[in-house]
């Protein structure tokens, strides 16, 4: 019988899928059909982990400290394999490009693809959460700064949300008349409508 591949619960409490114990998962697969499966498993894993651990950013450079306790170590590296495996930079680069294309990541800074903000919820989902938050906390029709939204006194789902992602969610609400962006010094603000 071959090796048994099972899900593994890591220190953070996250449950890694069986395929993470598959040594070849960490090497770029040259067969296009195999690769599309591999890519799908990787992007799902990355987004699920980001949401679990509330990590907003992922860069190709995260590969470098994956083996030495970096924030992405539990996912990009598997020390239980002999020898341990780490995802290749080329592979991670392709995954980031794919995530950007699917609008599950925003390039940050813009116009490159080796450093991104992850949309572990889609932008329309974030827009919905943002609007619900404004309504349930009674903050409609008042001007809020972006800082107030991502650093609320009572922690919310929006705590720590990077500004580019927040702006995209607000832009979507503005289109449907649920928010109004107010330009100004210090980054301006936003007014939500019920």
């Amino acid at each position, binding site marked *: *019988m071959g090796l048994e591949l099972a*899900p593994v619960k890591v220190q953070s409490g996250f449950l890694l899928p069986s*395929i993470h114990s598959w040594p*070849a998962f960490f090497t770029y697969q040259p067969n296009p*059909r195999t690769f599309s499966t*591999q890519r799908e498993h990787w992007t799902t894993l990355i987004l699920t982990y980001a949401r679990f651990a509330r990590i907003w950013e992922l860069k190709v450079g995260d590969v470098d400290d994956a083996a030495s306790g970096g924030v992405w170590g539990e996912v990009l590296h598997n020390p239980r394999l002999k020898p341990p495996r780490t995802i290749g930079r080329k592979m991670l680069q392709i995954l980031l490009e794919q995530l950007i294309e699917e609008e599950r990541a925003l390039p940050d800074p813009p116009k490159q693809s080796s450093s991104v903000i992850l949309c572990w919820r889609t932008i329309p989902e974030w827009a919905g959460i943002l609007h619900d938050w404004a309504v349930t906390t009674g903050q409609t029709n008042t001007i809020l700064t972006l800082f107030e939204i991502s650093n609320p006194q009572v922690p919310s789902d929006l705590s720590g949300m990077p500004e580019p992602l927040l702006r995209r969610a607000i832009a979507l609400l503005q289109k449907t008349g649920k928010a109004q962006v107010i330009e100004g010094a210090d980054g301006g603000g936003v007014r939500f409508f019920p």
Partner: protein
Amino acid sequence: MHRLGGAGIGGLQRQTQATQAYKPLSSAISRSQIDSLQQQLATFREALTRFAREHRNDIRRNPEFRQQFQQMCAAIGVDPLAGPRKGGWWAELIGYGDWTYELAIQIVEICVNTRDINGGLIEMDEVLRMVRRLRALGEDDGSEAISEEDIVRSVHTLSVLGAGYQIVTVGHRKMLRIVPQELDTDQAAVLEVAQEAGGQVNEGLLVLRKKWTVERARTALENMLMRDGLCWIDDQAEEGIVYWVPSVMIWAEE
């Protein structure tokens, strides 16, 4: 010349007369044969119906009994899977056809779901495990058990779909193959070596175990990787480049 049958006009006339004389006799015999056959058939049918009624549950639950039932049917030339048009009463009484088709559908489901990872090749044990999982059965759940023969028979029913499902033997193990093209002997040899080595294989191992040239080993691996998608490449192993065969691994439940 000596003519036994009496060729010529006279001989022909004699033959015609004889044939005509036999006709009424022969049809009388046929009628009685048909009557008797119909009677036998009715008895047989009654017996089978009783058998089906009595053993319906055994056939569905007990793999050994099912196997023997299958052998009995084959011996008497009855197809228990015959559809409604050819003797559906049999399948209906036992529910055996439905049972086999249900299993076939589950096998297709398993093959389709795992194909992207394993390239369309899956071990029989893995199929059995996954069917049990689909049916939420325990490892040693005696009732409703599924055996290897059941899988083989269900796969056989799939052949009418022309879907290219076939059972191949690699080493000492049965595997289910879903891709239309046949496994060539080199691929089978690679799979066998990978099975023995816990799922991984490389050029050196093939040269050592199969006495192949490096070129032959390289070509076989390259084909399995690029053409068939039957293995994945790994460039971080101790031995350098190795290939992993997903179909010989056990994939635990997520």
